[in-house]
Each structure stands twice: as C-alpha cells, then as structure tokens.
C-alpha cells in the first residue's frame, strides 16, 4: 500500500504534473492563441522542416534498416558480430556526441571533402544517425524466426528470387518494419541534441521544431514553446498510434 503510494508520487512528480502543465499552458489562451503560436512563420517553417525530415528518415530507414537487418541475419562475413554490436551505438552515444561525431567527418575541414554543416541535409543526416537501430532491431528477430522452408517452398513452386522477396519475405517483415519506422518517426520528431551543433539552427532554413522550442524557452516565450511542443507530441503519438494499429491488423493475418 505504502509502495503503491510512493510509486504514484514518483510518477506524478516526474510525468503526470509536467504533462498536465504542458497541456494547460498550450491551451491557456484557447484554440485561437494556440493557432496563432503555431502559425507564426518561423514556427511553421520549423514544424514543416521537422515533419519533412522525419518523413524522409522513415523512408530511408525502411529501406536501409531492412537491408542491414537482412545482411546481419542471412549473410556471413568476418567481423559480423562486431558490426552487429555496433548497431546499438547511436542509442548508447549521447546525442550531443552524435552531433560532434558527424561534424568531425562531414563538417568544415572535412577530410573527405563533404561539408554539410548548416544545411538541411545535415538535419536528415543527424536524424538518420540517431534512429539507425530502430528498424534494424525490430526486423532482425522476425527475420531470424522467418522459416527458410517457406521461401524454399515458394522457390520450389517456381517463384524467382524477386517474387519470393516481394510475395513472401516483405509481407512477413512488414509489421516489424512498420513498428520500427514508427519509433524512428517519433524519435526524429523530438530529436534535439544531435541537431544543435551541426545544423547551425538557422531560422527558416535548418531550425528544427525542437530547436525552435528551445529558442522560445530561452526567450521566455513559454506559450509558443508549449504550443509547438504539443503539436509535435501529437504528431508523434498519432504516427505511433496509427502505425501501431496497422501492425496489429497485419500481424493478425501473418500469425
């Protein structure tokens, strides 16, 4: 009983009260004020950039994440165990370090001659770095359990490799890919640390939603910060919810 009370207090102090305060702040001036805050041109540009970059991240991760997972499960090559372990590095690495790491190679004085610092490409690059593990880690276990016999059966029935991939493998992996990209999207929408150094935070150009929120907090414009926060949070939850729903529908057929 005492235990439950303490758990409740901890959760209230850490999550319930803050989320309630955020919602209250964003709704303080009514829907009109909320609308005004998010339709401020700089805010709008930041929101658009974040959503567009996150959408690109979803597509790239769906393709490359699945490919990497496939290679890690079905291929054999020296050093595979190390590559496999390194996949989690972006999760373990502090986000600010992720930014520094990318700048070291792709910033000013780049040894490979690629300087993306302060460009929109850097936003997408940083988001790809921090979300890399999501799709790989959600597809990998499904691929491990995917019965080779199913693919062999299809092949024995006369299906070519591409047909097997399209008709057998991808439909089975789809729920895992979808849930992986949903997590990538939510993470990308909220990402902050890896962006602050490499993107330069140029308003209307490379300033992402989270960076805009940070700026508004620094300017003590908490109402604007809260409005954009709630909008981006809703976008993340919406995508998580919709794609989660899609996964449940699909896996009912697959399993």
């Amino acid at each position, binding site marked *: 009983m005492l235990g439950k009370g303490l758990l409740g207090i901890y959760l209230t102090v*850490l999550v319930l009260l*803050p989320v309630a305060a955020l919602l209250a702040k964003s709704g303080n001036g009514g829907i009109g004020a909320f609308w005004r805050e998010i339709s401020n041109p700089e805010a709008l540009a930041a929101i658009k950039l974040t959503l567009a970059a996150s959408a690109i991240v979803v597509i790239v991760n769906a393709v490359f994440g699945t490919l990497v997972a496939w290679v890690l499960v079905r291929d054999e*090559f020296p050093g595979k165990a190390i*590559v496999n372990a390194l996949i*989690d590095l972006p999760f373990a690495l502090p986000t600010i370090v992720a930014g520094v*790491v990318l700048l070291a190679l792709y910033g000013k004085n780049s040894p490979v001659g690629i300087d993306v610092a302060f460009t929109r490409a850097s936003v997408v*690059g940083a988001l790809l770095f921090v979300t890399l593990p999501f799709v790989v880690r959600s597809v*990998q276990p499904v691929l491990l359990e995917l019965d080779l016999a199913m693919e062999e059966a299809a092949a024995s029935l006369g299906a070519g490799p591409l047909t097997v991939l399209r008709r057998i493998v991808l439909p089975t992996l789809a729920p895992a890919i979808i849930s992986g990209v949903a997590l990538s999207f939510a993470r990308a929408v909220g990402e*902050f640390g890896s962006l602050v150094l490499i993107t330069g935070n140029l308003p209307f150009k490379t300033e992402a939603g989270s960076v805009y929120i940070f700026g508004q907090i620094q300017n003590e414009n908490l109402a604007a910060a809260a409005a954009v926060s709630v909008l981006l949070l809703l976008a993340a939850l919406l995508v998580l919810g919709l794609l989660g729903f899609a996964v449940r529908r699909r896996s009912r057929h697959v399993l």
Partner: protein
Amino acid sequence: MSSSKLAARTIALAYLALLLLAPVLMIFYRTFEHGVAPVWSAVSAPNAQHAFWLSLEIVAIAVPLNTVFGIGMALLLERGRFRGKALLGMLIDLPFAISPVVVGLSLVLVYGKTGWLGDWLAARGIQVIFSVPGMVIATAVVCLPFVVRETVPVLRELGVDSEQAAETLGASAWQAFWRVTLPGIRWGVVYGVVLTTARALGEFGAVSIVSGRVEGQTQTLPLYVQDRFENFDSTGAYTAAVVLALLALATLLAMNLLTRRTHRRTAL
C-alpha cells in the same frame, strides 16, 4: 555466392561505414590530431573535471531512484489486478515519445519560477530549476521507462509459482521478494540499469533547459561538449566527446555480455 547477395552486403556495410563507423573513428583521430598534451590539459581543465563529476553525481541519484521505481512499477504492472493498467503502461512509456526539450519545458512549467509550484517552492527556499534537483528530475524522466520495460518480461517469464512456493515454505512477502523474486529477475533489472545509466550520462536536451548551463556549476559533461564547441575550443569538445563515447562503448560491451547471459536482445 550470388551477386545480389554480395551487392546487398556491400550496400549495407557501406551505409553503416559512412553513417556510423567513419564518423565515430574520426573523432578519435580529431581528438589526438595534435598529440596527447592538449588532450591531457583539456581533461584536467577545472570546468571539465567539474562537469564530469556533476554528471556522475546526477547518475548516482537518478539511476537508483529509477531502479527502485522501475522494479516496483514492473511488479504492479505484471502482478497487480486493477483497472487502467494499459493506460498506466502507456503513461510510463510516454517519456520515450516526448522530445527531451519538451520534457525540460514541462518541468519548467511545474517547478520553474512562474510554474505551478514556483511560489510554493520559493516560499520554502527550494530551488529546483537551474539547480541540481531539477537536473536529476529531468534525467530521471527521460530514462524512466528503461527498467520497467526490461523487468516486466523477465517477471512474466519467472511466473508466480516460485514466489508461491516460497510462501508455502514460510517466507514473508518481503523474504519472498528479496530471496526469490529479485534474484530471479536480476539480469533483466541489470540490463535496464545499464541502459538507464547510458542514457542518464548522455542526456542533453532536458538537462540543458532545466540547468541554466552555468559553467562550473550546472554544466554536465554533454553540456560542456556544447560549450567548448561554441567557444571554438575543438580539442576540449572532442576530448569530452571521446570520454562520453568511451562510456557508450563500455555500455555496448556490457549490453552484449548481458545479452549472452539472458539470451535476449532488446532495442533501447
């Protein structure tokens, strides 16, 4: 080997090399570009030292709190019977869906000067925002779900039989927990603690907002990296980043060793 398989391998490894491996190796190179001496002076700079120890201090408070909370909440979610359990589970996972910046903002809105509890706290002389308590809270929020998430499945796998066996053998609820339940779930808990520690050490956005980033006072190691970078002290920034990266690699190693123990692999 088929050519398509070789192509897949080449593309996948090239992608990983360009996005992940090359940049990470690059900071090690950049750090030691000008030899060991500047690195040594960067490490021994008083503000760097202070940031390092402050980071550890925050971890030393937030991680045990989250561990106790995580185990308790996992027990409640897995063993309890009550309405609204699914909702409680979603609430616990919420910090993973929220941007760290938004976490920071929400805490300011409650515990800040103009926040809901601002006056109440000020009247008692308690400062949360722009001081260590706020940074601990912010850190605890962003890594709240880890221990819960890692403990629930092992608790489910353990089942209630061994706890009931302990009970029929005369153990009190407390004895059954310490001697049967906790040892049974320990590897799951440890895995959660490793993830929590890694995330807590590296937290940037939420702490950045609630700390006020006062040099030598409320500057953690990740904040120090940004500070050095913006002051064009690239050796200082790279050195601090390498320290954090080494801690991250140690985390990876620990995760892999633990995965072998528990035969499980979970994404963060």
